[in-house]
């Protein structure tokens, strides 16, 4: 399923994602739970440095489970999570949840400071880093605000800033914008992309939305459910930076249609496999 890099057509005027070194392999990963649910079965996946990889699939296909395995919050029943390159430390993985998951008793500053603070970085030392992160997500001036004084979109921005403040090599995002309205979601898509375009950390992004995954990703992994598995991978050969003109381009429409078709097949495959079982 891995495509040769040179097979991609280059688009004039923008930069095609240039995949870096393989950073992470999932090798025949399976995860079963004590209640008998097989959340993932034989998942093979290669994540390259600087990828913006979306996991797209129906509810219950094991996207969150895969993300938790990658984060090391849970261990696979069998198979391997195989990191390449320098050993992964505490700072190297950022996680953004579906809910903003902020500490309601702490200010915006303290929430973003948290990952650094847990590693013993003092307020003074953390200050410039937190300030820079808040600026990137457009929240300068909200340092002393409490979470409940912010809108849903702003809370999500805080959560992203917190995920990025340690300068992780990999940012894991589990349906981060699913609870937001479409206008806010577009804005956050755009802002997330521009941060990523500058820094080129690796992103693994779980979503239910075909449109979102096509807009953001350099690669989309479509999963099927019961048991959760990789159904197909799609390379999104559209140049970055992407903006609203990309959203309205015929190219985008075509990619969405194709992704949507494959997603449909993945869901159908699921039905067939259940009927055969």
């Amino acid at each position: 399923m891995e495509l040769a890099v040179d097979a991609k057509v280059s688009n004039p005027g923008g930069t095609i994602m240039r995949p870096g070194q393989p950073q992470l392999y999932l090798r025949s990963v399976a995860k079963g739970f004590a209640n008998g649910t097989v959340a993932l079965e034989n998942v093979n996946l290669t994540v390259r440095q600087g990828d913006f990889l979306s996991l797209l699939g129906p509810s219950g296909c094991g996207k969150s489970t895969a993300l938790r395995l990658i984060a090391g919050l849970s261990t696979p029943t069998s198979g391997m999570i195989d990191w390449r390159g320098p050993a992964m430390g505490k700072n190297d993985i950022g996680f953004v949840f579906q809910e903003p998951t902020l500490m309601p008793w702490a200010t915006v500053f303290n929430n973003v400071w948290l990952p650094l603070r847990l590693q013993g970085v003092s307020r003074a030392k953390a200050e410039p880093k937190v300030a820079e992160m808040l600026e990137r997500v457009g929240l300068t001036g909200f340092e002393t605000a409490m979470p409940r004084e912010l809108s849903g979109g702003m809370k999500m921005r805080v959560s992203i800033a917190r995920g990025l403040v340690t300068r992780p090599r990999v940012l894991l995002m589990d349906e981060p914008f699913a609870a937001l309205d479409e206008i806010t979601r577009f804005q956050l898509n755009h802002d997330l992309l521009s941060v990523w375009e500058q820094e080129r950390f690796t992103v693994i992004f779980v979503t239910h939305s075909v449109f979102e995954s096509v807009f953001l990703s350099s690669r989309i992994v479509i999963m099927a459910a019961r048991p959760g598995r990789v159904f197909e991978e799609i390379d999104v050969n559209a140049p970055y930076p992407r903006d609203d003109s990309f959203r309205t381009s015929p190219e985008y429409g075509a990619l969405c249609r194709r992704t949507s078709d494959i997603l449909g097949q993945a869901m159908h495959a699921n039905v067939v496999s259940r009927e055969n079982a």
Partner: protein
Amino acid sequence: MSAVESHEQPIAIDAEEASRLRNERLERVGRWLFPLLIMAAAILAWDRICVWNEIPRYILPRPGEVLATLFQDAGILFSALAVTLRITFLSLALAVIGGVGLAILFTQSKWVEMSFFPFAVILQVTPIVAIFPLINIYVDDQTTKLLLCAWIVAFFPILSNTTLGLNSVDRNLLDLFKLNGANRWQTLWHLRLPASMPYFLGGLKIAGGLSLIGAVVAEFVAGASGQNSGLASRIIEAGYRLNAPRLFAALILISFTGIVIFLVLSWISHLILRRWHESALRRDH
């Protein structure tokens, strides 16, 4: 600029909003006014009943007389109140230390919680007056006896609420802490303790009242003892001597103290939670 100013001018309020506003204002005033009116009416009725039925003062004194006694016997009553208050606050402090300490211990290990929580429940459900004779045998010092009693009564709501609070942490936040390599103490200090704050404060409000009740009840069963006697001893004493006005005065002091403790703890709780917790939000939306 003018656009901004016109925004700041009050918009016309329709009839529905106006009546809602009026109701709200009435409710705010009524919350204080009505209880006070009822109280005043009750006191007046009390006074009239005494006069009309010519009830002797050693059975039911008139309210004015009770008030006068409160002033006349202020020396005795307030020094007794000070003793009771000392027991109350000491036992409350110990209940906080013990309750929170045990709760923290419980959250360190499920096994510890499973093993010891039932004993806390047993201690709580057994009436303190039934335990007291035992305490009386084993403990000599009067203050220690009373403290122990009040503590047993007060510590359970703090323990159970704080345990609940320490365990009701957002699972994702716990994952985040784990991901960032937080150790046990960091998780406790930065996550579990703050998250348990609303629960703890709820328990504290209950424990405040209970520690006063504990202090008074303990003194009742322990019996009066000269110098160091609190309000309960004064009540018993006044009962023996048929000094009803003083009995009422002492009673009023106790209730009043209970109310003040509750208000102070509610206020502290409000101050701590007002910036973040839902319960402290004003419903202005």
